[in-house]
């Protein structure tokens, strides 16, 4: 701090506390709503203190879900977890491999391959929805884990990140490995991957959140309830209209849907910040 200005410091704290409160408000109300009965939530105004139906509501949604969507949220959480893990790990693995090929080999079409990966940055799912859907449906990948994950697994960002990092690995290491008679894959496994660990951890946090929070893609490729991810499950629960919506159960589901990615961010905060900053370079 440059100088002591008690008033300014006070104003600063006031703004920050206000910011924290506004940021937390929707989640607090959600938590409160998830501990009441459906009738209590519909009272106007709804109660602002937690009620006594916490266990009951969460047990109900995990087993049977809410409203018309009959699938249990437990099953949806498993779907979300599987797709988030496959997307995160899949992106990391194929990006590590392709960055290794681009940096450590000289081959024909290397420039074209690099350029092709780069262009995918400019083609988010949102702009090619219908044709991508057709491809997936022609390949009979609707309502499957493969359909939920494989089309999202290419990653220009991760490939560039690893490429940048590989370029900073000293050449002496590769030379030493060659003199010792190690082949490229041995070098990859014993030197490159261990050195990349911090980058892998940081990317994993970002990509796990990315995978868990996917919306448009699972909305298109899942039609059966037992393949819904939890984010899609919530949307289906509220689409019945006000009267039919059991808000206490919807809010319990929302809490469950937020929990895993929020935990990942809070527990791996250091990696999260590194991943966010690195992936935008």
């Amino acid at each position, binding site marked *: 701090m440059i100088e002591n200005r008690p008033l300014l410091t006070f104003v600063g704290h006031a703004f920050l506390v206000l910011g924290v409160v506004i940021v937390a408000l929707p989640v607090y*109300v959600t938590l409160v709503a998830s501990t009441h009965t459906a009738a209590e939530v519909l009272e106007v105004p709804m109660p*602002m203190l937690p009620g006594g139906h916490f266990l009951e509501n969460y047990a109900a949604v995990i087993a049977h879900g809410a409203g018309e969507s009959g699938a249990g949220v437990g099953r949806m959480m498993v779907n979300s977890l599987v797709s988030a893990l496959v997307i995160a790990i899949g992106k990391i693995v194929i990006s590590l491999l392709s960055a290794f*090929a681009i940096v450590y080999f000289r081959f024909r079409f290397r420039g074209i391959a690099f350029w092709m990966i780069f262009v995918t940055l400019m083609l988010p799912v949102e*702009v090619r929805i219908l044709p991508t859907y057709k491809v997936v449906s022609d390949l009979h990948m609707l309502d499957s884990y493969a359909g939920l994950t494989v089309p999202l697994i290419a990653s220009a960002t991760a490939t560039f990140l690893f490429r940048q990092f590989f370029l900073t690995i000293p050449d002496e290491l590769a030379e030493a490995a060659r003199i010792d008679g190690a082949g490229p894959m041995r070098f990859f496994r014993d030197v490159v991957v261990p050195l990349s660990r911090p980058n892998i951890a940081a990317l994993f946090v970002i990509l796990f959140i990315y995978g868990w929070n996917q919306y448009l893609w699972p909305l298109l490729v899942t039609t059966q309830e037992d393949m819904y991810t939890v984010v899609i499950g919530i949307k289906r629960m509220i689409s019945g209209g006000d009267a039919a919506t059991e808000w206490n159960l919807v809010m319990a589901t929302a809490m469950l849907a937020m929990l895993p990615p929020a935990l*990942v961010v809070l527990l791996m905060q250091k990696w999260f910040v590194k991943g966010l900053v690195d992936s*935008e370079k």
Partner: protein
Amino acid sequence: MEKRARFRSWWLPYALILPQIAVTLVFFFWPAGQALYYSAFIQDAFGGNLQFVGLDNFRELFADPHYLASFKVTAVFSLLVAALGLSVSLVLAVFADRVVRGATAYKTLLIWPYAVAPAVAAVLWVFLFNPTIGIVAWWLKRVGVDWNYLLDGDQALLLIVIAAVWKQVSYNFLFFLAGLQSIPKSLIEAAAIDGAGPVRRFATIVFPLLSPTTFFLLVVNVVYAFFDTFAIVDAATSGGPGQATEILVYKVYKDGFKGLDLGGSAAQSVILMVIVITLTVVQFRFVERKVQY
């Protein structure tokens, strides 16, 4: 930059890069090509014959008042999201950079909304602002605001702006904070010794030095508002009331999946691709050059 030390193999590099390229070709290039192709055709109502119409789909789009309205909604929406998101997070970051006590705690308490799915963020805010049961809607009515976002288009737009900003503030905050922390303290100390007060220091030193971060975040926020807010719109308002919150990305989805207008939706996809490409080029060309004094 190139490596001196390389490995030699005639097949290994191709095998290593194959998975990435295969996914890219099948799920990116092929569909993008299809979008380009279908944008030049119309399909009859029974899903049968394709008829080549050249650029007619595009001409039709730009003559369609609904499409132009959707452009306007998108522009207003992304401006609001970027302006509001950047200013709120800048204020928070400046104060978080200044306070000594509790800085880490504030940071932790402000960054977690990044982890919330956009669709879930929309549901949380819909619940607060729901005209019949929402607690915030109830407060608003008590102070005399006639709140019903299901009928009032401006209110619906405001609702999705709030949800989108809430979700993005944590991201902007982290980047602003990092930018602020990288400004040399000696500059600010020198200005303080010369008698410049906190406001003057911010306006003449901190804010100009922060301009690369601000510009970068501006582009990122516009891209976010254009493309990553589909889930917020779909879960909160489904583009309504009327088409008051129908942003471009939502319209592509609606015309393609609900309206089954293959050619029109493909033409819209092509226009969106042009927008993304422009934004990406801007991001790479100008952000690299660093806007600074």
